[in-house]
C-alpha cells in the first residue's frame, strides 16, 4: 500500500466537488459558508500535498506557507460572512438567500 501525490490530489478534487455541490444546492446562508470552507479545506490539502511531494530546497515548504495564509483568509472570510448573515437576518427576518 502506498500513497502518492495523485491520490491526495484526487482527495482534494473530491472534497472540492462536494463543496461545489453544497454551494449550488443549499439555500441557507450559513450552509453556503460551510460549503465555501469545504472548498478551502480542499485547497489546503492540495497545497500540503504539493509541499510534501514536490519539495525543492530553493523554495522550501512554499505549499505549507501558502496553506497557512489560506487558513488565515478563510478565518477572515467566515468572520465577515457571519456578520453579513446576521445583517441579512435583521433586514429580512430570514437567513435563506432566495427570500
Amino acid at each position, binding site marked *: 500500500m502506498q500513497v502518492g501525490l495523485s491520490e491526495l490530489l484526487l482527495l482534494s478534487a473530491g472534497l472540492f466537488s462536494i463543496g461545489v455541490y453544497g454551494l449550488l444546492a443549499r439555500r441557507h446562508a450559513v450552509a453556503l459558508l460551510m460549503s465555501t470552507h469545504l472548498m478551502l479545506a480542499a485547497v489546503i490539502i492540495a497545497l500540503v500535498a504539493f509541499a510534501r511531494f*514536490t519539495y525543492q530546497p530553493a523554495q522550501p515548504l512554499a505549499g505549507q506557507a501558502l496553506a497557512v495564509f489560506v487558513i488565515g483568509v478563510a478565518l477572515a472570510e467566515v468572520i465577515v460572512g457571519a456578520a453579513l448573515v446576521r445583517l441579512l437576518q435583521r433586514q429580512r427576518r430570514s437567513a435563506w438567500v432566495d427570500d
Partner: protein
Amino acid sequence: MIRDPAQAAGIYLTGALILAGGVAAVTLRNLYRAGVALALTFVMAAVLSLLLGAPLVGLVQLVGGVAGVGFVLLGSLLSLRRRGVAGTDGDRRPRPLPILLALVTFALLAIGLSGARWAVGSWPPTGGTVAVLAGEIGQRYAVALDALGILLVAALVGAFVFAGRDSSDAGAAPAGHRRSQRPRRRSA
C-alpha cells in the same frame, strides 16, 4: 511516494473520514449537525497534515478551522435561533443540476491533475519542517504575513460594524409583510 504501510493506511482512513464529513456537512438538513460534521472534517484535515509532515499547518488548521470556523458558524446558528430563524435548510428534494455540476467539476479536476507531471522533490528538509516553515514565513513571506494580520483586523472591525448596527436600521419588514400594510380603500 509514501510506502510505509501504517502511514499509508492512516492517510487512506483519514481521507475517507474527510470525504464522509464533507458529504455530511452539505447534506444534513439540521445545520447544527452539519456544523459539527464540518468541524470534524477540519480535525481530520489537520490529522492528514500531520501525517504528511506538516505539524504547524495541522495546528493552525485545528485552531483556525475548528475553533474559529466551528465556533463562529455555530455561534451564528445559535444567534439566528434566538431570533426565531430555524436551524434547518428545509428543502429535501434532490437537485440534479448541482449534482451534475459537482460531478463535472470533479471529472475536470481529476483529468487535469492526473494528466500533469509533477517534479518530485527530496524529503524531509534538514532542520525539521516547523523550523524551516517558521523561518520562511518570517523572512520570505513577512510582507504577506503582515497583510494577513491587517486583513484579519479589518475583518474583525467590519464584523463589529455590521453586527452593531442600530436596530432601527434593520426595522424594515420583509416584502411579503409590506403588502398587507397597504392602506385599504374606504368604500363610499
